[in-house]
């Protein structure tokens, strides 16, 4: 493997890690969101490298595009850029970091101590994971999950609309006016 490829992978990996760290440490939620976009794009590139162009593009359009827009929109709407970084829960931060470190160490150790190391990823043919292939699979074997997902999305949409609909101070519906409460100007 030549050094250029390694470098590219190294930079990508570093981007992923750094943007993730940036996401959780930045004071401003807006910055977090932007870090996340960077992260998504970097991961999308990795998808491309793994021979999954459809997923990569979906990643960029759905995640980096629409979902992040939604995030930023809500951040702006609620004015929630100001972030509270202090920790009122005693021991939460220390214990959290400790556990995460252990977790990570364990996973890494696990890979290192494996008796049968994983092979390198074989060369990927061009036709693998082409949109056509994915489409075939999606509408044959995974038809039912696909439809269910569609339904979930629909339900989520309806739910989101219902939740965020503004219910102002009860406005009497026209026609169903209670007689004992006179309407005042």
């Amino acid at each position: 493997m030549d050094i250029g490829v390694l470098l590219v992978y190294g930079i990508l990996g570093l981007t992923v890690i750094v943007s993730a760290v940036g996401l959780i440490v930045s004071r401003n939620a807006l910055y977090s969101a932007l870090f996340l976009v960077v992260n998504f794009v970097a991961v999308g590139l990795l998808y491309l490298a793994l021979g999954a162009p459809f997923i990569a593009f979906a990643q960029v359009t759905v995640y980096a595009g629409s979902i992040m827009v939604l995030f930023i929109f809500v951040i702006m709407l609620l004015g929630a850029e100001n972030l509270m970084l202090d920790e009122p829960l005693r021991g939460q931060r220390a214990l959290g970091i400790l556990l995460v470190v252990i977790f990570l160490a364990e996973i890494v150790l696990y890979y290192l101590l494996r008796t049968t190391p994983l092979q390198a990823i074989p060369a990927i043919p061009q036709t693998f994971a082409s949109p056509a292939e994915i489409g075939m699979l999606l509408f044959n074997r995974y038809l039912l999950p696909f439809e269910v997902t569609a339904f979930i999305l629909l339900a989520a949409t309806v739910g989101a609309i219902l939740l965020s609909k503004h219910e102002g101070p009860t406005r009497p519906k026209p026609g169903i006016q209670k007689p004992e409460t006179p309407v005042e100007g």
Partner: protein
Amino acid sequence: MNFETVLPLAPWVVFFPVLGILLNLLLGKRLGEKGIGIIASLAAGLSFGVAVLLALGLAGHPEGATYPFLRWLAVGDFVADWNFRVDTLSVTMMLVVAGVGSLIHIYSIGYMHADVRHNGEPGRFRRFFVFLNLFVAAMMILVSADNFLMLFVGWEGVGLCSYLLIGFWFEKGAGGIANAQAAKKAFVVNRIGDFGLLIAIFLIFYNFGSLDFETVFAQAPQVAAALPGVILAITLFMLLGVTGKSAQLPLYVWLPDAMAGPTPVSALIHAATMVTAGVYLVARSQALYQQVVLAQDVVMWVGAATAFFAATIAVGQYDIKKVLAYSTISQLGFMVTAVGMGAAVAGMFHLVTHAFFKALLFLGAGSVILGMEHGHEHAAAHGSHTEGHHSAFDPQDMRNMGGLREKMPLTFWVYLIGALALAGIAPLSGFFSKDEILADASLHHPAVYLVLTAAAFLTAFYVARQLAMVFFGKPRSEAAAGAAESPAVVTVPLVILAVLAAVGGLLNFPTTHWLEKWLEHSLYGVEPARFILSVALISLAVALTGLLIGWLVYGRKPLEDARQPDPLARPLNGLFLALEHKWWVDELYQAVVVKPYLRLAQFLAQPVDQGVIDGLVNGVGNLLRSTAQSWRRIQNGYVRSYALTILLGVVLVVTYLVLR
């Protein structure tokens, strides 16, 4: 009279009074006092009539018989029938109960008429007669019982009536509650005795296989030979019952307090009949007692000790009825001594004569009290009211009396007869019956004889004291001065009783011994009664001496004023104080039995029950609660905390996977 034809009448001795109760309960309100009194008296009288018929029947058939009536209780091998035992002993008791009872019923018509008005509750007239009839019924069940269970039924039944009648004026007495407390005391003390009787009954059943008198007494010698300890236990437990019902040491304490009941009640229940039930029981169970000498001795000594002890207390009392009450206890002691010695006939003889003269004395005392109340009300009405507050005046206090001989002559004369009979002056009835007991004691138990003679002396002494204080001297209160003779309905029964008290000695007159011949058919191992001239003369001399000394102390120089101390108070000093305070026995019991029990109960109720037991229960609850209280902190509501916990779980799972 043919015995077979009268025998089926036996249940009516119980059911006439029961009928009286029902009639009075149903119709009493409409009949008025006269009707109520007549129905109740008729019920008792008819009961007496049946008893007379039974007695006449028995004359030709003295062995007696049992009239089967009802299978009362049958569980497994335990069978108890309600049968009526008609033999000379039970019929003698029936005659006394119904005879004296009828007279007292009649007397009560007049007495209660005044009493309910004096106490301001005319509505209770009916209640009194219902209770009185109930008493006769229960007493009849007791004496006609053919087994120990039915005897116990009657035994407790009369105890109930005693309770009801002592507490008849339940809102009166010291502090408004003394009468009720006296009633309670009587019931509870009796219950202690009943406990003994119950245990005796259980022992009898398991060692004789039956409670029927016939079966038990027939087997007594065999069982006694095989299990002497058991018979001793039976007789001693039975004695506990006797001491309760017949007011013997150590359970006599209820009887003086029982004088809180209306006077006819004191006469009927607490002098003539109920309290003699214990004597009857021992007489009836002679077959058992004569198997163990030790038990006999114990009974005898209990009786003798009581006879002397109560007589001493009687000397120091001021309440006219209290004197009679202690006198009753003392006389019951004589009877118990007699039956304990095996001289059951003498004991029964004294029981009968005592019923006559003590009923007479109580009714006479009642008449005196009526006169005093009358005088008191009279004085109050005329405004010359010097004794102080109305409620403070005690019409039963002998210190307030005096000189009633002139105001109430008839009462005085009959009272005198009763008192002399009690003192044992020949030829009145008490002389003969007491003498028979003394004669028997002198032969076998000289020590007992001495004690009884001393008691007889004291008896004569307090009789003289009472007579002097009540009837002689000058009136010491306005009430006494204004006292008047009681109406005929009161005095007629007095006269009848006086006659009986005077001539009752004929029943077992030394030459004829009718009673002995009558009773020997139903009493076990009757000892022939003896007349010992020396003993008779000594006892007569002792009685006369007692009377004389009493007269010298109290009669020669009568009390002038109600507040004047007793002439004996100075010479006897502390001793008289002890007599006045009844040797502090009540206080002793209070300190030794009542208080500790209350303290124990309080200890169990508060620290033990609420503290330990319930505390343990609530402690378990609280433990759970506090545990949950500390554990709920984990569920703090912070999502991030939960997430951390999840992470912890993840780490643990991964650790497991890695280390596997």
